């Protein structure tokens, strides 16, 4: 198994998750990398990605695992992928493991950076949201309240930036929802393109560690 970390930026923020998967498939085929295929009726490349990002948000920390068997050395994989990638995807790291590292199920949180001129004025109120907030959603004429207490690991305001860590996966607080909330609450106009996912995080011994640290350890223990 080879796992690649990559950045998705520029025009990549306008491309949906399913189209990104298609694009990764094509990159790997262009790179001439021999990846194993599923055995089913509709055979497809065996690729595993972490959870999707909403449209409009860039990421410095995306992950994809390819089932390559013994066929290719990880450095070779990395170099070939880099050359064949579209302009909005940049490979940043590569790891080789014996088994599927199952990053999709391991990742439980994401760290985001939001560039937000004028947020200093609301610093205390913003950081206080760490304790949770409620959002009212209306669906089919019925109003439902959703409480996000326990979904937020951290929110810090430094200069013009908000750094926040939200749970991700089964218990999910989407960054776009948070941006909408603070825009409404403080009368701001932060666009989604101001948000970047900086890190994906997993848990070890009750502590959050980055996906990169997790992959380094898994690779060492292979």
């Amino acid at each position, binding site marked *: 198994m080879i796992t690649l970390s990559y950045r998705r930026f*520029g*025009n990549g923020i*306008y*491309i*949906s998750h*399913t*189209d990104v998967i*298609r*694009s990764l*498939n*094509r*990159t*790997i*085929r*262009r*790179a*001439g990398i021999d990846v194993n*295929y599923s055995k089913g*009726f*509709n*055979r*497809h*490349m065996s690729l595993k990605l972490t959870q999707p990002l909403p*449209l*409009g948000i860039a990421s410095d920390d995306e992950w994809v695992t390819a089932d390559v068997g013994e066929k290719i050395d990880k450095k070779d994989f990395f170099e070939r992928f880099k050359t*064949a990638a*579209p*302009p*909005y995807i940049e490979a940043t790291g590569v790891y080789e493991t014996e088994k599927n590292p199952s990053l999709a199920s391991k990742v439980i949180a994401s760290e985001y950076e939001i560039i937000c001129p004028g947020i200093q004025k609301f610093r205390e109120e913003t950081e206080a949201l760490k304790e949770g907030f409620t959002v009212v959603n209306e669906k089919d004429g019925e109003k439902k309240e959703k409480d996000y207490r326990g979904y937020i690991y951290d929110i810090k305001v430094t200069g013009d930036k908000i750094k926040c860590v939200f749970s991700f996966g089964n218990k999910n607080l989407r960054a776009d929802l948070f941006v909408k909330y603070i825009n409404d609450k403080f009368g701001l106009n932060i*666009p*989604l*393109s101001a948000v970047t996912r900086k890190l994906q995080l997993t848990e070890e011994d009750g502590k959050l560690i980055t996906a990169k640290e997790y992959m380094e350890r898994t690779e060492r223990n292979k």
Partner: protein
Amino acid sequence: MIDINEELLRVEKPARYIGGEYNTPDMEKDCSVRFCLCFPDLYEVGMSNLGIGILYDILNKAEGVVCERCFAPWTDFAAVLKEKKTPLFSIETKKPLKEFDIVGFSVPYEMSYSNILYMLDLAEIPFRAKDRKEGYPLIVGGGPASANPEPIIDFFDLFFIGDGEETDLAVARVVEKYKGDKERILTECAKIDGVYVPSRCGEKDGICVGKVKKAVVKNLDAAPYPEKPLVPNMAIVHDRGVVELYRGCYAGCRFCQACFFYRPIRYRSKERVVSLAEKIIDNTGYDEIGLTSLSSGDYEDIYSVLEGIKEVSEKRNVVFQMPSLRLDSFTAKLTSNAKKSSLTFAPEAGTQRLRDVINKNITETDIENSMKLAFETGYRTVKLYFMLGLPTETDEDVKGIAETVKKIRSIYKEVTGKTDLSINISTAMFIPKPVTPFQWAAQISAEEMERKQNILKAEFYPMKGVKYSWHGADMSVLEGIFARGDRKLSEVIETAYGKGCYFDGWTEKFDSTKWFEALDECGIDISKYTGERGLEETLPWDFIDFGVTKKYLRREYEKALQGKTTKPCKYECNGCGAKREGDCRMYSGDCVK
């Protein structure tokens, strides 16, 4: 450069507007001519158009020329452009269309005419050529609509007739040489074969009296073909690599415009086709590759091509989309491992009599044998295409469609012992098209179309596993009007656009009432356009020399009315006239000179 990035998140599928696809050519190179290739439909439709891909490749490889693209934006993005007072722009460098030297529309079919105005409107470019003084780009057109560009010709400075591979670049060179002198540009372009400059042709009773020769690429094997096509960033209609096998068609079905318009028959060699397939897969990473032509099964050495592509695609874990072929033991072998999703068959008419009239050389036995083999090979779903309203059609012929379906169901039961066959039947309405033997024939009325569709609905209603879909009557009538239309119709298009008609090919946007109001307001007598034309009448497209002669088309029309067929011209030339335009390839490699 226009910056509209923030707005993109407000619209559906923003990837339609961003550009930057893999294999995008160098947009920064030194250039003296900037060409914007436009398609009057959405990105996912236009990006599936092979003509756009070929011309984009040729123009961008040419020294001193940069070619960009623009597709019709969906209504949400158009609203953003209007709100931001931003003119329509190219997707590569976000340059407003009105700042290009040439803006070229590839016009795929009649119902896209209003979208040309929609795009010009968004681009802040006057619709009519006479209203565009110096300073505006040269507005040019081409594509399948060039069989009869008259209904839209007032909107264009010039129109490409026939193959665009050589003429588009030739016009770009004229623009390069005489930049800033539109009159001189038009005069010089009128001298190029395959370029129709309306302002340089005379006119009598609204019909062009000049003579324009269709452009023909004589050697298709040597013609440029995109080996590194753009790889879209989102799913498109035909999301795969495509190799054009050959141009033209032997069959001679009398309703088919493409068959006669794209003659003479020119091949790409097997070696070139397989090599292109290999290069396209390697350069794009597509997981599917396919062939395109009017009838791939009629390519002389088709099985050797199929085996060649199958070999290169299997090596790379790429799916080879087999073309629709007449099913025989050889194709059955080739597809033995393939997914048996559905088999497509186009008998076009329900009785042998009518199939003879339209010269669809398929017999009852052909249909029965193909179906038997298909069911033995494992197919459980069949798609059947028919046409309604064909010349000389009776209710017996319409009911014959249902009889054919019943026969197919019984063959399935005979072969498999089961009754779970799924049959999807689709009927299109016959539309008399220019450059076909049926160009003189009448089109039936909308009421008659609906009556015939109702006969079939009643026939199919009790049949289990049969799904029937049909083409709308109003849209078919409009297509018929514009297909054989003249210059008077430009006013109708402009009036209909003013009423809010655009994206007319999209059912949710199509509003026939507005179109018929526009026809009425412009004083158009519909029956004059849809009715039978006199054999001696001068037709609006008669000024174009298509290669295939009017005399031959007339002979074929007369044979049709007598129920006589003409053999496909694989072994013997039928004398259609196309050979005057270059070598016409027959079987055994012989060419009619």
